[in-house]
């Protein structure tokens, strides 16, 4: 394995020369911004401001991750000494904001969500609830899209791998969303998702006799799902091609042997196709995961992170705070945390899946 250092003389020059375009690109557009971001994340750098940039230590990270749980005490009726209840018999609690603003230790915190558990009312307060919500949304997105999109891609690959007439046409059709601009698709799908007049709800209305018409992007309950469906539809064609290559690399002799052993179609799929696709699947899972974490364009075009932060993602929050709200230092801290997160997960996936990588 010492061959890589075995270049001599002009070979070495050519090696550097040939890799120079890639190295310069990586340095300029990956390494440099990465170090710049790391540096700025410890400052209060603003995009447009006459005020000098100051070193603020870990302040940005504290603001991003600041999280506390407080228990609200019911309002006490001074006459009876009992908790006050409203007309419907529910206990009356003070406004969270009054509590938060009344306590200097909670300075800069806002309510994230409230929950009635264990016989009391608990409020989760955070310095940046939107960032924490963006972490949750991003993880939900990744957890749904990786198996969902991968499964869809495998299904499509199996379909277009059949010896059917016109399979090349179908391959092209399934692949076409991948090469279409996401911004364009997002606008088109915004029309499709229109609750009253969109094609999707017109269809759903017809087949369910008007009983099922989600509000899609307009409702906090369904907006993320709408983004997930569009994303899976758009990107699955790419994984389909990879699965297709994997399928075509499986030796026909294995299927013939299975048939001689009396294996039916399902058994052939389960015991020949799936194990043979192992390496392909690992590649698809890792690449889809990394791509899925970068979710931004659809959100930016379709929902701007709303409604009620239902679709805000980490990358969107980085752009929104860093660029639109002009807090470069803060946005940089978001991207640094994002970088750590993605690298950790990629390394974990590698460690988990590396064992037993040879399949014969």
């Amino acid at each position, binding site marked *: 394995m010492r061959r890589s250092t075995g270049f001599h003389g002009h070979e070495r020059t050519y090696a550097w020369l040939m890799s120079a375009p890639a190295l310069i690109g990586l340095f300029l557009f990956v390494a440099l911004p990465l170090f710049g971001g790391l540096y700025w994340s410890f400052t*209060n750098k*603003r*995009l*447009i*401001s*006459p*005020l000098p940039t100051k070193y603020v230590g870990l302040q940005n990270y504290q603001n991003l991750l600041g999280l506390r749980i407080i228990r609200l005490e019911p309002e006490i009726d001074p006459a009876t000494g009992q908790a006050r209840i409203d007309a419907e018999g529910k206990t009356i609690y003070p*406004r969270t*904001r009054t509590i938060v603003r009344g306590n200097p230790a909670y300075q*800069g915190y*806002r*309510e994230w969500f409230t929950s009635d558990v264990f016989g009391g009312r608990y409020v989760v307060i955070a310095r940046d609830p939107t960032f924490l919500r963006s972490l949750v949304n991003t993880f939900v997105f990744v957890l749904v899209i990786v198996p969902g999109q991968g499964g869809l891609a495998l299904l499509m690959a199996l379909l277009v791998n059949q010896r059917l007439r016109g399979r090349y046409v179908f391959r092209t059709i399934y692949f076409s969303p991948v090469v279409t601009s996401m911004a364009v698709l997002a*606008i088109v799908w915004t*029309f499709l998702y*229109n*609750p*009253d*007049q969109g094609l999707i709800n017109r269809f759903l209305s017809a087949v369910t006799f008007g009983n099922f018409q989600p509000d899609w992007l*307009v*409702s*906090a309950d369904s907006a993320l799902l709408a983004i997930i469906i569009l994303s899976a539809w758009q990107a699955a064609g790419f994984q389909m091609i990879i699965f297709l290559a994997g399928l075509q690399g499986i030796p026909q002799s294995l299927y013939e042997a299975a048939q001689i052993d009396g294996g039916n179609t399902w058994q052939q799929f389960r015991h020949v196709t799936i194990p043979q696709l192992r390496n392909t699947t690992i590649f698809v899972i890792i690449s889809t995961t990394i791509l899925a974490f970068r979710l931004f364009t659809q959100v930016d*075009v379709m929902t*701007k992170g*709303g*409604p*009620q932060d239902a679709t805000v993602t980490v990358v969107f929050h980085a752009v929104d705070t860093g*660029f*639109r*709200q*002009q*807090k470069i230092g803060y946005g940089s801290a978001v991207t640094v945390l994002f970088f750590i997160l993605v690298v950790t997960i990629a390394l974990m996936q590698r460690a988990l899946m590396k064992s037993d990588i040879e399949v014969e």
Partner: protein
Amino acid sequence: MKRKALSIFVLLLALAAFMPAGILAQDMVELELWYHGGTQEENDETRAQVDRFNAMQDAIQVNFVELAGSLVAGTGYNDAVNAAAVAGDLPCILDLDGPNLYNYAWAGFLAPLDDYMSDDLRADILPSLIDQGLYNGKIYAMGQYDSGLALVGRVSLLEEAGLRIPTSIDDAWTLDEFNDVLASLQALDSVEYAIDLKMNYGAGEWYTYAFSPVVQGFGGDLIDGETLSGEGLLNGPEAVAAMEWIKSLFDNGYATLTPPDDNEFINGNAAMGFLGHWMATGYYEAFGDDMIVLPVVNFGARQATGMGSWAWSITTQCDNPDAAWTFMEFMLTPEEILSITNVNAAVPGRLSALAMSELFGEGGRMNIFVQQLESGIAIPRPITPGYPAVTSAFFTAMDNIIKGGDIQAELDAAVDKIAQDVADNDGYPVQG
């Protein structure tokens, strides 16, 4: 060393080959101008104005650069201007949307125009335009026009529903009357719903421009001009009442959250429209004299509507500010002002131009817009360098509210975000 000198020479030669001829010709001053993508007609007319300026003299060549916005005009443009400001790459002449001006002026990117403006010119400019261009006592931008925000309706439908039709700002509908108007129009068979609120523009500047006057009309406000805080104004009972009313329009079916495009009034789906001047020309073309511009509703606490539009400014990164002003002076002639306002139906920015205008003068069909600006009903959006944070907090809160969020909690969050931004900027201290 010789080789190095040679390679620099070759590099220079290569650069020279790519330079436009104009820079090499010494006598001509070249200025770059950035323009946001408005409507097609507006773009064409502005480009034609620049061409006219270039054709009428030889000393200055203005290069018109239209930066395409995103889906909603202006959004992508502001991002591009921000990036250029940081990179030191701003053009000489820039068009900026009203309230974004203060942030750039505070940061020192814009040159004051006071010394350029003659007393005669200044006296002839629409007062609302001066108000909008002022930051810290100096004028940093001057538009050819101001905007108008009003209601639009069809005489035939209003008469069919048996409604009183206001003719000036003095007899504008009251809130109770307007609720009745909406209910009556909703009941007509020929329309699907009562009013198009242009929600297709999405969560962005439109919400702040169009609906913060509703909050003000109910007695609330965005922020206090002195303390820059929204406490008690944006989250007080008046603002909550305003938001409840806005939300009720959607809950009652009077308006839709998801109009498919800009044409709900034109194609007859909506009986009325709540609109900025930029739609008025198209509406008139669709309905002719059946279309009528109506004053904004008097919500009780005060009559309020939006103002402020795109305006020209000269950047401090400009090498030839005098030449840039020569161009602006041309753009501010009454003839050029009318040539653009006849296309986009914005309110002409000079009194002398107004007097010459058939559309906007006394009895003109767009005269309501002028009445609203001149009577002080129109309120500038908050004059603060922190405006980007204010508008973002407001339109996010409103978007959440109309899509089901808790009104008080959302408005509280908006107030907190604005306060956080002011704190992050040391209270936006006025610069030297």
